[in-house]
């Protein structure tokens, strides 16, 4: 197992390097430059060139990449071209809110999806099943931005119950209740999407397991049906569910871009959006590196959890 983890970590290094190189090339191929984004269009071209020289943007690409890499190893991930802050610090400030938002959304989504999926699997083709699968369809097909705007309209504008954006009320106490109120709408939006996808996954995974011989064995022992489903079947059904959830963690970081933007949530998604707009190369590179790292880490973690959940799997 340890040898397996070490091997996976060693493989990760060249993969991450490769990803950053490709990103670097793609970003530099994109039209526009950070200098053009930040200054008055009437600035004389000579001044722009001078600014580019100062920022090192006129160096050969490979040199720019190496400079960036050196910054990575220094731990500051370079300096933002718009705020001049170290990129590491900027990401550090925003990762907390994103993790809170995503973590809660995940929990809410699964809390809806797992029981509904099980009920819908054990009562196939019943009204409850149709209701759950119908609901899941809605959850998948309503776009996040649409649901978000709808919720803001109802709860913030009309009912005035919940804030329409931000993480804390400006000038407020910033206490727990206040933060929670700000979380409700974005979590609801993201949670609905997650639940929608997962209900059908849990359902089919449980249906798969319900046909297994060992459940018949459990019933033949005199185990009650509730335990047959929620102990014997669920424990097995969770194995593939854990895998899919694990693999989706990094995707959700991306999925939060739109939602964070709408709710002006000060997280990674908003930062990503901003740095794309401003062609903030160092920040974009760092965010890409973070995303790639998350994908690899989630993969490895999923495999490890998988081997813990399923005694048949042993990595060598």
């Amino acid at each position, binding site marked *: 197992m340890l040898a397996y983890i070490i091997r996976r970590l060693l493989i990760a290094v060249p993969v991450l390097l490769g990803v950053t190189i490709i990103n670097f090339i793609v970003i530099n191929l994109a039209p526009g430059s950070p200098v053009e984004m930040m200054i008055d269009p009437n600035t004389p071209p000579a001044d722009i060139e001078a600014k580019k020289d100062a920022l090192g943007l006129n160096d050969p690409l490979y040199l720019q990449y190496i400079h960036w890499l050196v910054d990575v190893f220094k731990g500051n991930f370079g300096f933002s071209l718009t705020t001049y802050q170290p990129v590491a610090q900027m990401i550090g400030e925003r990762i907390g809110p994103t993790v809170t938002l995503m973590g809660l959304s995940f929990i809410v989504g699964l809390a809806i999806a797992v029981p509904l999926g099980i009920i819908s699997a054990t009562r196939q083709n019943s009204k409850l099943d149709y209701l759950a699968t119908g609901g899941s369809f809605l959850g998948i097909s309503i776009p996040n931005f649409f649901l978000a705007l709808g919720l803001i309209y109802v709860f913030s504008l009309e009912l005035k119950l919940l804030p329409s954006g931000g993480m804390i009320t400006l000038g407020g106490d910033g206490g727990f209740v206040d933060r929670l109120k700000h979380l409700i709408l974005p979590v609801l939006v993201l949670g609905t999407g997650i639940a929608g996808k997962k209900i059908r996954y849990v359902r089919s995974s449980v249906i798969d397991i319900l046909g297994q011989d*060992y459940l018949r*064995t459990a019933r033949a*022992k005199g185990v009650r049906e509730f335990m047959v489903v929620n102990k014997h079947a669920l424990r097995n059904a969770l194995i593939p569910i854990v895998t899919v959830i694990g693999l989706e963690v990094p995707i959700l970081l991306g999925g939060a871009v739109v939602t964070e933007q709408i709710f002006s949530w000060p997280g990674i998604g908003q930062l990503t959006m901003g740095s794309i707009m401003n062609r903030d190369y160092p920040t974009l590179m760092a965010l890409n590196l973070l995303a790639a790292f998350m994908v690899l880490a989630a993969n490895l973690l999923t495999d490890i959890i998988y081997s813990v959940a399923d005694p048949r799997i042993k990595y060598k």
Partner: protein
Amino acid sequence: MEHLLTVNRLQTAFRTDQGEVISIDDVSFRLKAGETLGIVGESGCGKSVTSLSIMRLLGAKGRISRGEIIFEDKSLGKLTEAQMRDIRGNDISMIFQEPMTSLNPVFTIGHQMIEAIRLHMSLDKKAARAYAIEMLKRVGIPRPEVMVDEYPHALSGGMRQRVMIAMALSCEPRLLIADEPTTALDVTIQAQILELMKKLKQESGTAIMLITHDLGVIAEMADKVIVMYAGQVVEETDVFTLFDEPKHPYTQGLMQSIPHIDAEHGERLASIPGSVPSLQNMPAGCRFRARCPHAMEKCEAELPPLIPAGKNHLTRCWLAVQPASMAKEAAYG
């Protein structure tokens, strides 16, 4: 109480997309305490459905549509689900064909055994574990105190079937239903399991309902045999009579189509032409008619009942009707 189990004109039906389909029909037999009843037949003949009907484990789509099952003095069809759970694994337990898939892969063997033991016996966890180890020892699992903490995947098919047997016998059931217990095993492992079942039966006096397609296993184990074809019992008698004087043409065909390992070399194997009719279009009259060398007009017109063909010998075939009684029937016809 003479019989441990009486199955009386049992009919079981399953809901399908094309409406309800009758899977077994008019199945009757009786089993005494300590007896081994063999149920033999080919795939789809209803032998497994018969056993699942007794356990009332037919799932949401199946139901017993007619007849009754009397176990000891209880009519199993009339019990509540909770009462039935008390019987499962306790008075009647079951082992299955596929030892590889019959144990839950994510729980240890000990966990699964202890679960069964504690459901029906008032033992605390520690005592139940000690008892589970004791049972594993009885069925010949080496190093039972270590194996009890193993997951099923660490065991071979033969060992898993031993675990299934240990689990099934742990609450000292009055009846053990063994559904093709050795079909998935290699022949030397099959021999081990059959020996084990014989030994345990002698020790405990448990009655066994042994379901198999293998006439060799039947000859080896059973006291009494019923032969099933297309959802019905077609012959019932003791094991010696069955092999010496099979009466139903299907049983005869089955006997002749086994390639014996002690047969003369070079002789041609007899085979039954055609194949089993499907449940959806079961023919009227005798269900074996289309494949039977002796089919008569009467076979098409009327389904034969189980007709006495000797002492303790029943067969579902018009040929068994004595000429005299046939004449009588014609006269009254």
